[in-house]
């Protein structure tokens, strides 16, 4: 039989899909079976490489469980490479834990197969298809216990995906950084929209920093600002600095709608 990894590369029609395995242990058993390997004496290095190759071929996007197993196999591979003295006392085969898990899982798989057959056999017998309307009696009293209720709440909470908690870092306004970005833009171009200094997905902090920086540059007389129409972005015009800039004058003269909202 061809090893699955070789087959993957050789024949595009042969596809091993990750969802055909019910987990990394299942995939591992599959590889061992394909290679007719004794579970008790696994050539870890070879199997680890094959395992990695297969999960690589299959795409890793949703395979956290497989990645964890890949990590274990690689650690094991490294452990097997460590030198050991002949007949050393107390040497424990680093593979024994993996062997135990594989055997346990293999047993579960056999039980699962037994259950499946039992269910199939049972499915050959049909219950009565027509069930009479329930009698027109008051429904039996409903049993609701506080303990069961609280457990239900806890189950729901446990099943809610936990939001990733981020460390909250105090974030001061970065006017200095915004100034540097604006100065670069001013050196390159006569006129540009202040929005260009913001980047693709600005945070509110960056918007504020940039706005303050623009105003600061205008105050220093390095640029002048204009807003063509209400709600339109401010335009930043390059200005040669005067020795004695009139503070704020540029702003009021060049912004036709001083009360106009800034987009």
């Amino acid at each position, binding site marked *: 039989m061809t090893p699955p990894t070789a087959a993957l590369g050789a024949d595009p029609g042969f596809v091993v899909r990750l969802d055909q395995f019910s987990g990394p242990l299942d995939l591992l058993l599959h590889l061992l079976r394909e290679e007719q390997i004794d579970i008790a004496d696994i050539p870890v290095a070879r199997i680890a490489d094959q395992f990695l190759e297969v999960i690589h071929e299959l795409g890793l996007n949703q395979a956290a469980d497989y990645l964890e197993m890949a990590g274990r196999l690689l650690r094991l591979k490294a452990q097997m490479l460590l030198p050991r003295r002949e007949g050393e006392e107390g040497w424990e085969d680093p593979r024994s834990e993996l062997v135990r898990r594989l055997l346990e899982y293999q047993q579960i798989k056999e039980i699962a197969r037994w259950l499946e057959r039992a269910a199939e056999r049972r499915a050959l017998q049909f219950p009565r298809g027509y069930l009479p309307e329930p009698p027109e009696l008051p429904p039996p009293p409903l049993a609701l216990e506080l303990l069961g209720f609280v457990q239900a709440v806890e189950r*729901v909470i446990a099943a809610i995906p936990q939001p990733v908690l981020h460390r909250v870092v105090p974030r001061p306004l970065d006017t200095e950084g915004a100034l540097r970005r604006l100065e670069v833009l001013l050196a390159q171009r006569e006129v540009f929209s202040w929005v260009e200094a913001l980047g693709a997905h600005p945070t509110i902090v960056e918007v504020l920093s940039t706005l303050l920086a623009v105003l600061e540059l205008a105050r220093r007389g390095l640029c002048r600002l204009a807003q063509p129409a209400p709600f339109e972005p401010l335009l930043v015009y390059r200005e040669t600095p005067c020795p004695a800039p009139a503070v704020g004058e540029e702003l009021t003269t060049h912004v036709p709608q001083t009360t106009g909202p800034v987009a």
Partner: protein
Amino acid sequence: MSLRPLAQLLEAALFAASRPLTVEELQTLEGEATAADVRAALDELREHYDFGGHAVEVVELAGGYQVLTRRAFAEAIERAQFAARPARLTAAALETLAVIAYRQPVGRAEIEEIRGVSAGGVLRTLQERGLIEVVGRSDGMGRPLLYGTTALFLELLGLRDLAELPRAEEFSVALQPPRPAAADADEAAASVPAES
């Protein structure tokens, strides 16, 4: 006297089907059978039920045939109340009820977001059971219905009012729809290309 093969087939089909079956449908069970064969086998089955003292009979109904329990036994069965399972809520119903109890008034969309599964059938069951009721409409898109728990709900749990729900504050805070990580401000900040 034992039932003959075609009568056996008809018995199996009439037992397993959820509705009356017509003679034409019953013919499909056995390729060679004519309508007359099927009618003869139906008669055989009917006689078998009648003379064997069975509690069921072959009834002609809605253009087809069905095996039903005889009327004489209906009363005894009703008295025994087998038809309904002992009334306990399923895990899904209980969990939905829990979300409503701690988040009310709450709409279906939020319940589904929190539990991660659709809630339509369960909401109907809970409403039929009188454990929840529509308490209003949200102002949001489509003005969805909002649900809340009923007096019966409190009664069954032995509570005087909602304030007596166990760990009310802790649970009402914990039962939030999951927040997508992308909405996080830190992530947004990280995606701004570094410049200078």
